[in-house]
């Protein structure tokens, strides 16, 4: 996913000379293709994220298109006020790129987990929030953001992210992608949870339950139509994210549903409101939070199993 980002950024930068890449000394073995091709447009700002974001704002105010890269807690949280004032309030044309979405830095511990970033980025006025599902989406999202004017947050997974898409897709910021058709339940997932939701949907299909899977890669602005359509055409809507159940995709979907006239079974699946305690890998942490394909499938069966079989 990270490599797909770099590849797409290099491609966009060939055409667009105003693109600049800043890193807070992270992205070793990831950013080299950009560094080698555009050494004058690459800046390792060192471990100083507040300055990095402020510098990006200054560059943007001078006509550049900076991409700021770090691990999510250091990209989105340490310099939060700089993102709020210098980027969002000034509508500076800066893209914040955070890697290590959700629990991907599992064993590194909760300092490196990224489970509230969507919530805080989504709350910022003028901010667009994009969470690609896999490397295909990451590449397309990077391309789209390079052409997009204004502040945006790109949330990337780490490495070896399973592919959610088996075919070519068309990617548009703010428009959900239907990865799988189905009218029994709708699994609205974001980021790496899209491929997990696909696995859950596949196992449910064997039981005769057809799940729609949506890749809700843009959390803000949210594709309200896709949510309402899912609520109209299916019996159960689940939001699925590797992020806290507070403030992220689940909250965004809840807001749309609660304010609509649709009546549908709904549940938010995500990381519970706590710091991880058990020292385990990403799958282990997902399991603790009910986020494995098996657990998602069980949840669907529990909520609508009998209904669906009728």
């Amino acid at each position, binding site marked *: 996913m990270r490599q797909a980002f770099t590849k797409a950024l290099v491609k966009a930068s060939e055409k667009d000379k105003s693109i600049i890449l800043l890193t807070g000394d992270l992205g070793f073995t990831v950013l080299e293709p950009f560094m080698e091709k555009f050494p004058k447009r690459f800046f390792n*700002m*060192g471990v*100083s994220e507040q300055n990095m974001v402020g510098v990006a*704002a*200054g*560059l943007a*105010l001078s006509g550049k298109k900076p991409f700021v890269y770090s691990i999510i807690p250091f990209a989105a949280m340490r310099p939060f*006020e700089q993102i709020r*004032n210098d980027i969002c309030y000034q509508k500076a044309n800066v893209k914040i790129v955070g890697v290590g979405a959700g629990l991907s830095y599992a064993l590194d511990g909760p300092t490196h987990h990224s489970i509230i970033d969507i919530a805080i980025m989504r709350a910022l006025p003028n901010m667009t929030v994009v969470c690609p599902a896999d490397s295909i989406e990451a590449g397309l999202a990077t391309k789209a953001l390079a052409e997009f004017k204004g502040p945006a947050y790109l949330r990337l997974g780490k490495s070896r992210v399973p592919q959610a898409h088996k075919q070519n897709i068309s990617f548009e910021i703010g428009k959900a992608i239907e990865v799988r058709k189905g009218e029994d339940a709708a699994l609205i997932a974001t980021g790496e949870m899209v491929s997990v939701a696909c696995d859950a949907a596949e196992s449910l299909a064997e039981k005769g339950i057809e799940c729609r899977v949506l890749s809700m890669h843009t959390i803000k602005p949210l594709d309200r139509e896709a949510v309402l359509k899912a609520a109209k055409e299916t019996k159960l809507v689940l939001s699925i994210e590797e992020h806290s159940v507070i403030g992220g995709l689940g909250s965004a979907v809840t807001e749309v549903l609660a304010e609509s006239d649709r009546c549908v079974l709904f549940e938010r699946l995500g990381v519970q409101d706590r710091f991880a305690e058990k020292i385990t890998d990403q799958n282990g942490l997902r399991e603790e939070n009910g986020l494995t394909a098996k657990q998602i499938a069980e949840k669907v069966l529990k909520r609508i199993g009998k209904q669906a079989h009728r």
Partner: protein
Amino acid sequence: MAKLVELKKKAAGIRKKIVEMSYKSNASHIGGALSCTDILTVLYFDVMKINPKRPLEKTRDRLVLSKGHAAATLFSILAEKGFFEKKTLEEFHVENGRLWGHPNLGIVPGVEATTGSLGHGLPIGVGMALAGKLDGLNYNVFVVLSDGECEEGSNWEAALSAAHNKLDNLVAIIDYNKWQCFGKTNEVVNLEPLAEKWKAFGFSVKEVNGHNFEELVSTFKEVPFEKGKPSMIIANTVKGKGISFMEDCLEWHYKSPNKEQCRQAFEEIEKQAIPGSKSKEKEKNKIKGESK
């Protein structure tokens, strides 16, 4: 010489505007607005390459007022320069007005960055200076900081990065009036030795009397002080400068003058605008005493 008299008159006019704005809007921070008035006056009326008719010209010098709470100073100078109409100043910090109490990008021309939260201006200035280098444009970026603001870690991050990138088109100025919200800066958190700190961070540093026009004019002429290094001017100033009952007095970080105080302030400012009306020696001693 005539130029210095002219600049001094300009500064007096700006001071009167600041007092009037503070009185009418009931805004805080008049003390810190007055302490940086002479610095900003010299910059805008003698040093910076700017054209109010073409406020976004690529080659222009930029000024980021990192101590955004001195917005009244910046706004009155920009209006005086002709970036916008002077009557807009009536809309400062009042209901349904156009100007917030801190500078905002995009509301009136001439403001280069939104500030108000301390520790943001220098990184933004570094970005602007870096862009200048990348584009081969030889403009300067001036960033005006407060002293208390130097307690923000982001400034020191920015300092490292300015020196590392050899940004000799970056000129930072500290309005060193020695006061912050709760008291004397060096009693709240000791900043000294301040010049040595900036030197150690890779800046070429000069100390000046921030109210001595001759010194300010000649110092700004010398930037960059060293090729390949960002410049730092530590300007020793007096909070509330120019108005006897406000000078060096913490409460004017918060208060705004009433009508009678306004009248008195105007009177004092007008007197000072005429050269020789105030003992230069007295002024010098005040600064000296403060910088200890």
